[in-house]
């Protein structure tokens, strides 16, 4: 079945390469195949629909890189969005958050057989060996035969203490006793393993909600099988609602499942995927990498790397071209637009400044001042110009300014501001090219920033408060 899908995809993607922007038709055609690919990978239908709609919206009008077909370009955009969606977001530490007074309670929840007990022991081993934590484990599973014993044996294997088993105790009572022991005996972390339960089993769901209320866990991990199908949405939704899941542990990633449940659960809970299980052994636990899972879910890694290569080549050519223009002292609106788009992708001026040596202070100044909105507005103004105006901004006088402002729904003064900024930048470009630092030119705006910092002293272009 998978092969057939690939064949069909090739049908779409073998079409002639074409320059220019992605049309609605291009995007729709490719997205139909992407939708199927995501569903084959077990991404849940409502999540697929939203994801496809979101990518579609952003993809129409995107430039198609040279020597790449529109379909391939869409796949690359889909891949990027997948990575973005699956990532925890900048600044979020990977792994477990233990930032709370000891003993930090961590609750493990999920369906039957998803891998909770195994993952609990793996985490305990990791916290103990890698972060030097004193860990206590307790099994609240009074349902599955020998479940408590299973955790006790694993505890011995990994050298982590488990709460002594008292027969006939309720899960809530076990949780309380575990935390009490954690407190009295100076443990750093208390891991609470629970019985598996179905999302629609009201009795068991309210039991785990009670445990949650009693233990007040700092982290609640939903342990889910990478092979999970469409039901992932129901599971994620139910557990998120009842026990406020804070993270996901995806197990059996060592299998050959495409793992679409990762996207479903990430989307439904809004929680990061914190850990992945990659085997039955106690050290088979890894940090989550959004890019790897993304390639796996989409199953179009070849296309993605092909497009990435093409982008690299194009960017190098672009830099070369720009450098030549700068030497001649030319820097038109098209170049400005190109640089702005580059900036958008790279994450703002502040981060670029941070990448350059000796600009730490400037980065501070820039922080919070560069606004994606400003860049977008500038781009809108430029796109409202005629090709001729873009190539030769000197043409833009009063009546043209009026037309441009109307075209993008902005004021003439906005157009003026942009023109002034363009002039300043063109001037800076000349300065830089006079210095003849080819290396700097290659890095485009980033290089420019360095020249600007020395040459102007004032606020840089496109810095502005939102």
């Amino acid at each position: 079945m998978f092969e057939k899908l690939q064949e069909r995809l090739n049908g779409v993607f073998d079409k002639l390469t074409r320059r220019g922007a992605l049309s609605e038709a291009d995007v729709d055609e490719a997205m139909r195949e992407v939708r199927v690919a995501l569903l084959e990978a077990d991404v849940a239908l409502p999540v697929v629909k939203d994801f496809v709609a979101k990518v579609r919206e952003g993809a129409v009008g995107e430039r198609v890189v040279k020597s790449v077909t529109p379909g391939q370009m869409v796949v690359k955009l889909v891949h990027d969005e997948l990575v973005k969606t699956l990532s925890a977001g900048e600044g979020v530490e990977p792994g477990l958050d233990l930032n709370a007074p000891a003993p930090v309670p961590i609750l493990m929840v999920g369906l039957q057989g998803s891998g909770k007990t195994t993952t609990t022991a793996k985490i305990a081993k990791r916290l103990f060996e890698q972060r030097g934590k004193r860990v206590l484990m307790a099994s609240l599973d009074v349902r599955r035969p020998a479940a408590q014993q299973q955790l006790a044996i694993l505890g011995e294997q990994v050298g982590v203490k488990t709460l002594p088993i008292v027969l006939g105790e309720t899960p809530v009572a076990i949780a309380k006793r575990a935390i009490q022991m954690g407190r009295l005996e100076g443990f750093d972390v208390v891991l609470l393993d629970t019985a598996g339960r179905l999302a629609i089993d009201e009795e068991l769901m309210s039991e785990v909600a009670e445990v949650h209320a009693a233990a007040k866990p700092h982290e609640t991990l939903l342990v889910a099988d990478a092979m999970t199908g469409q039901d992932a949405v129901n599971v994620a939704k139910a557990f998120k609602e009842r026990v406020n899941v804070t993270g996901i542990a995806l197990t059996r990633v060592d299998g050959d499942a495409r793992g679409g449940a990762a996207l479903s659960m990430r989307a439904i809970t809004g929680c990061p995927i914190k850990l992945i299980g990659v085997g039955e052994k106690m050290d088979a636990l890894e940090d989550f990498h959004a890019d790897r899972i993304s390639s796996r879910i989409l199953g179009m890694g070849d296309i993605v790397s092909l497009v990435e290569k093409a982008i690299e080549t194009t960017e190098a050519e672009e830099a070369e071209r720009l450098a030549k223009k700068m030497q001649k002292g030319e820097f038109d609106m098209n170049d400005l637009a190109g640089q702005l788009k580059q900036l958008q992708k790279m994450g703002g001026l502040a981060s670029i400044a941070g990448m350059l040596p000796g600009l730490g202070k400037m980065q501070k100044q820039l922080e919070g001042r560069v606004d994606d909105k400003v860049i977008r507005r500038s781009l809108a103004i430029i796109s409202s110009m005629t090709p001729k105006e873009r190539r030769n901004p000197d043409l833009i006088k009063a009546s043209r300014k009026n037309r441009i402002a109307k075209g993008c729904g902005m004021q003439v003064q906005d157009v003026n501001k942009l023109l002034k900024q363009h002039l300043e930048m063109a001037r800076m470009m000349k300065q830089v090219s006079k210095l003849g630092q080819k290396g700097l030119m290659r890095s485009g705006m980033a290089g420019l920033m360095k020249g600007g910092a020395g040459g102007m002293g004032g606020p840089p272009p496109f810095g502005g408060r939102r």
Partner: protein
Amino acid sequence: MTLETSETEKRGWFQRLKAGLTRTSTKITGSITGIFTKKKLDRALLEELEEALIAADMGPATAARLTEALAKDRFDKEITEQEVREVFATEIANILKPVAQPLVLSDREPHVVLVIGVNGSGKTTTIGKLAQNYKRAGKNVMLAAGDTFRAAAVEQLKIWGERAGVKVVAREAGADAAGLAYDALAAAKAEGADLLLIDTAGRLQNKTDLMAELQKIIRVIRKLDPEAPHSTLLVLDATTGQNAHSQVEIFKAMCDVTGLVITKLDGSAKGGVLVALAEKFKLPVHAVGVGETADDLRPFDAEVFAKDLMDV
């Protein structure tokens, strides 16, 4: 793009998704009234049904094919949604009926059943359930604790054995599973048992070495009975999505699976992948698991399954 922007965007997307989900459930309630009103079978309704099939894990290809085939003569006719769903359910039941076959025991002494599948799918529990059922039916049943790998797997099976009142042959953890199976079959033969159920450790089908271990178990018990195992049951978890294809394909190729058991059908997962599996592999489906106690094993009923799938 600044961090803040991307964060708001992301949140916006989650919010939209949430709204979408609420919409879906309102739609379901809304369609309960709409369900009995006759209207033309149009694209929109068909798309809805196709989506219901996809959401039940049928897989996009099978869902599309079935929808097209079923719509063929009915397109543009006046029909209620309820009627369409019933037609769909009947057709799906027809696909599944040929595979709805109970597990039949031979008169071998013992009839050997090897139970295999991926980790956590419900092998041990299913064995516990089968043991109790056959014991109640008056059979002399024995169990072999062939999962010598997972912590407390032996203890788990022993508890099931106690519950059912049947003998469990076990060795210490870490022992050779094939050797244990051999011992168990020898013991069952000596006792003249009717049925020997052999539990195995869970394994993912892409692990060649672990799959080879299964083949070794089969090779070794054949020294005692060249026809053993008389049944090889693959236990599938209904929560599993399209990976079930790979599971059936590889386990069947490696171990000659003779039948399937679908577990955890008491949950919200519908197990729709079974429809495609039935068409492709034609393996009998013997039973379904609908809970965690010994009584929660049912014969596979194609009609009930299909009706659940179509929500009728």
